[in-house]
């Protein structure tokens, strides 16, 4: 039997295993990096609206009240004690700060303007994003479960505040595979002054095979760890090496009949292809100056702008799930200058990504989502004299999406006059997850994995499609 047939049989066997239920296929399933899987059908439950997701994760909790959720009532109530009915029985982070006295409401110092056909509100911090108002769906009043960064980030990614569950990118690539033949299916990019709280747990595969975990890429240097051949090893020598390994492994395959060896041979071939495609991927020399300027990208730097451009290049090449983390949104002390700084880093590239995807015809089959792990309180927080910030708020934050299958140019959900709670139906993080999966053609209730005797899913026992969002 030739190698191709062996690999094919291996693949078939894998499908057979899946149909046979738990336990049989775990090792076999783990055999291929999600990036190398033929588009799996395990999670394809209906026609998809999109092929790829770019999740722009604003780590730290951006203030919806300074950006998108305009609350003129807060101006009247500025510096006045919060009426009890809004905070009674609620738990907040940094309880000790609040326990001393009734917290005071804080009006936003930003100027707000409406943009787009729907009259979506934007503050003066996001002038670029306001220009794509008709290409995004704004969602207000989203709530989450936990008011601490690490657990809340885990929750957004894995549907659990505890570590150990698979992240959404892992579920997606486990469910429907990847279109790219030479890049991993779930790529993680990072910018900002530090890594996101929680680190690798945020893109872990949990109990799913490790082949589905997110692969961190860097926008400078080697995009993937160990992607470059060792110093002094020429491309020809590397090719010779991989050929020799393949030939010797084929002999071992003949001798033992262990099909895992066939998989290993194909993984080495994929590794070699990645070595070639990786440097090409991050070579911005192919981009026009106009495009670089649109994003504000500067080749070679680990910036959010570069990562947005890289994200476009990744989905262009068929990568299924790209997640960008940008840190430093945790504005307890001061909601003015530090927030201005981080929005300046994020505003233009975010808008550029949406525009660029659109003009290349990619936006229809991509979902861009911009969100933090939670938002910030309508009350102010004073940690240092003369400065004012906002605390974590989990009951009503704002996020927006752009792309295929959704009503772009629409606003979904509203919050009360101060922005404490949603006034319509609650939109939960589980709903956001269910909606993302739905757009990819996955029924969130059917994509399950049996672990420790139970069928787990991303959305646990919750989740529904966000009402009024889908087109």
């Amino acid at each position: 039997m030739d190698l191709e047939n062996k690999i094919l049989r291996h693949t078939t066997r894998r499908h057979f295993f899946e149909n046979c239920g738990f336990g049989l296929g775990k090792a076999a399933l783990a055999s291929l990096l999600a990036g190398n899987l033929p588009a799996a059908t395990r999670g394809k439950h209906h026609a998809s609206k999109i092929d790829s997701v770019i999740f722009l994760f604003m780590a730290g909790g951006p203030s919806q009240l300074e950006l998108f959720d305009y609350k003129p009532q807060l101006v009247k109530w500025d510096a006045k004690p919060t009426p009890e009915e809004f905070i009674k029985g609620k738990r907040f982070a940094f309880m000790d700060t609040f326990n001393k006295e009734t917290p005071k409401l804080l009006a936003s110092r930003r100027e707000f303007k409406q943009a787009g056909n729907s009259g979506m509100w934007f503050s003066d911090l996001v002038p670029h994003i306001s220009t794509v108002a008709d290409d995004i769906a704004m969602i207000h009043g989203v709530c989450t479960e936990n008011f601490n960064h690490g657990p809340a980030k885990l929750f957004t990614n894995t549907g659990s505040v505890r570590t150990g569950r698979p992240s959404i990118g892992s579920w997606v690539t486990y469910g429907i595979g990847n279109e790219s033949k030479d890049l991993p299916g779930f790529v993680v990019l990072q910018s900002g002054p530090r890594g996101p709280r929680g680190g690798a747990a945020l893109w872990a595969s949990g109990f799913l095979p490790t082949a589905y975990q997110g692969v961190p890429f860097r926008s400078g240097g080697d995009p993937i760890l160990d992607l470059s051949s060792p110093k002094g090893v020429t491309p020809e020598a590397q090719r010779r090496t991989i050929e020799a390994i393949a030939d010797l492994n084929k002999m071992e395959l003949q001798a033992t009949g262990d099909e895992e060896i066939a998989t290993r041979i194909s993984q080495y071939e994929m590794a070699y292809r990645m070595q070639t495609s990786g440097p090409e991927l991050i070579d911005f020399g192919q981009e026009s100056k106009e495009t670089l300027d649109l994003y504000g990208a500067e080749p070679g730097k680990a910036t959010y702008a570069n990562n947005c451009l890289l994200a476009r290049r990744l989905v262009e090449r068929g990568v299924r799930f790209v997640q960008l983390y940008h840190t430093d949104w945790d504005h307890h002390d001061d909601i003015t200058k530090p927030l201005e700084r981080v929005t300046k880093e994020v505003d233009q590239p975010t808008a550029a990504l949406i525009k660029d995807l659109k003009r290349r015809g990619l936006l229809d089959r991509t979902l861009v989502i911009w969100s933090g792990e939670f938002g910030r309180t309508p009350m102010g927080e004073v940690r240092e004299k003369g400065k004012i910030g906002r605390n974590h708020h989990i009951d009503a934050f704002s996020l927006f999406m752009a792309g295929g299958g959704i009503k772009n140019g629409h606003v979904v959900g509203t919050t009360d006059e101060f922005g404490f709670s949603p006034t319509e139906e609650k939109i939960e993080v589980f709903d956001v997850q269910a909606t993302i999966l739905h757009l990819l053609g996955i029924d969130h209730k059917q994509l399950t994995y049996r672990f420790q005797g139970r069928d787990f899913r991303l959305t646990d026992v919750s989740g529904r499609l966000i009402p009024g969002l889908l087109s």
Partner: protein
Amino acid sequence: MRLACLILAAGSLFAQSAADTEFFDKQVRPLLRANCNGCHSVNSLNGGLALDSLEALRKGGNRGPAATPGDNNSLILQAVRHEGALKMPLGKKLAPEQVAVLEQWIAKGLPVAQDFKAAKRRQTRHWAFQPVTRPAPPAAAHPWIKSPVDNFILAKLAEAKIQPSPEANRATLLRRVSLDLIGLPPTLEELAAFENDKSPNAYEKQVDRLLASPHYGERQARFWLDLARYADTDGYTIDAPRDIVQWRDWVINAYNANMPYDRFTIEQLAGDLLPNPTNDQLIATGFHRNTPSNFEGGIDFEQYRVEAVADRVATTGSVWMGLTLGCARCHDHKYDPISQREFYQIFAFFNNADEVDREADRKYFNKPFLEIGTPEQIAAHQKWDEDVVALEGKIRNYQEQLVGNADMDEGLKKLRGELNALRRRKPKIQRAMIVRDRATPRDHYIHLGGDFTRKGASVQPDTPSVMPALKTQNNPPNRLDFARWLMSKDNPLTARVTVNRIWQHYFGKGFVETENDFGVMGDKPTHPELLDWLSSEFMDSGWNLKHLHKTIVMSGVYRQDSANRPDAAAADPYNKLLARQNRLRLEAEAIRDSALVASNLLSRKIGGPSVFPPLPAGAGDVTQVKREWKVSPGEDKYRRGLYTYFQRSAAHPALITFDAPDATVACTRRVRSNTPLQALILLNDDAYFEFAQSLGKRILAEAPPTTEARIAHGWKLVTHRAPKPAETARLARFVDAQSDAQTEKNEEAVWTAAARVLLNLDEFMTRE
């Protein structure tokens, strides 16, 4: 226990007459049976409530006691009168005279018949809860048989009409048993000694040598660290370093000393409660301090303490009981006979550990510690600790008084300078995170829906009713009682679960393939009699681990060849009957260790602080708090993978990529994935390139100076066998091409290249 006293006390208030008993038997019992017991009995614990014994109904369900003698407001009365939200029986209403019977019964002080007093124990026919038996090995005569284990295996194979495989050749066998027992491949000298040993017990001599090796403890410890979710840092947000390597070394030493598994368990779960515990027994309790801990600003410490305790229950369930106890945290277990109340009864055993549960104690984060040193060192450290706390307080006060810009204030600058200087003067002392109970026990209660802020009924520590009862004089029973209960010989789970997991290490999967789920949703054992035979053998040997390992590796089934058997695969495609050994990719650590042995770089130093081998550039950039990764100098650069510093939020890629667990929850079995990222590491990582260089030099130094001889030597160093002619020819072709491509003759570069090929062979990273 406590309940017995209550019943006695109640008895003194409400004397029970024969008429009362008759009233119960004729009126109350039939009423309960007809209207309540369908949903509320020990085998159907809706709402956690059983109404089939006095003990159970007094204890009550998740909402608290169902009835209290003389209390006309008892919950059961409220429910049957439809007074509140709770209306019972479901979907109907009792007739007024029936309600009156219950009212009368409670007014009389709940008189019951003798057989209704004590709580019923839950019954199940599920195999795993039945007592462990000692089946006689099936009679069989076959030259292949090396141990009673084989009689069981052979009987199943014979049923399927499959012949076992012959014994593997000596090289394969020694490589296999070395990698399995000590996690390291044999040296060529060890291999030669075995191949030349003509004595009939040559193999047994090797097994005994390996069991006596100090590396045995390292190998077995690594499996145990997986179960314990061991890491060198806290996890979650800050992910700071923690003091836990003492525990890791305790595990290595315990395995090497062949500590009986019952003692091994009891010291780890409750060493602190043993009489006059030694330092070692305290360090052992670090097992359950391996839970991730959150030190992020703005957290509710109680929430994360509760998380850790729940994790301890779930981990204890996975490791010793093979039960998914965690499923019963929010509601009764959907499949297994474990109620939510029982989850919190086990939770209660672990709930008194003295850990930080409020913001005011933030500075004591990760306490309690055992401080190890001379009395003077310990005193100096305590003094230093107090000085730091005092100075920090002084700075806080100063800041609060301060008017103006804090950054410009000279006084503050000076104080901060003092603090930094003081911190640098930290007296050297070793610390170990341990478990110790607090002076005042906590209240234990059911967390409704798994939410610790929603208090349900109070509970006391106890074990699941479906298991043998816990026997103790202590009231309430404590963690030590629980640990002893786990290790009591009538516990049907502990020995089976342990034997199954150890068997899995040798064959890739256990008799029960769902090694962490022996419940009704788990797989049935492929060889139930052998599992029981080994389990009873394990207990009868005094929980002797080395005896168990030796029993398995001496068997004929273990020693078989691993080559595919198309004839057997037709009848047994997954090789469940074990007509051959399984080829298994090595674990992350064993791949590194094997490369270190082949390249002659391995440091065989055992224990001590974790080490920092080279880390690919950028691999640590994903964490919130940047941690320094300074490559360890000298031999510490070449320590076994077990000792690589494990940072939870950015674990070393060479470990994680090869499926080392991420240390979040107990890992009872590692996945064996096969990905291109693994290829990139072995091909390109600086560490592996260095191993290749060293292996290349070694080949040049040790082999006769011909290409064939060098290939033969290098091949043997990584696979422990001689290359076949076709293999030699292919590698020689590669060597020639490498030489031709060079402008200057550089043998070292050529043989580094050849060594890279060798270290990427499937056979190198596989245990045949």
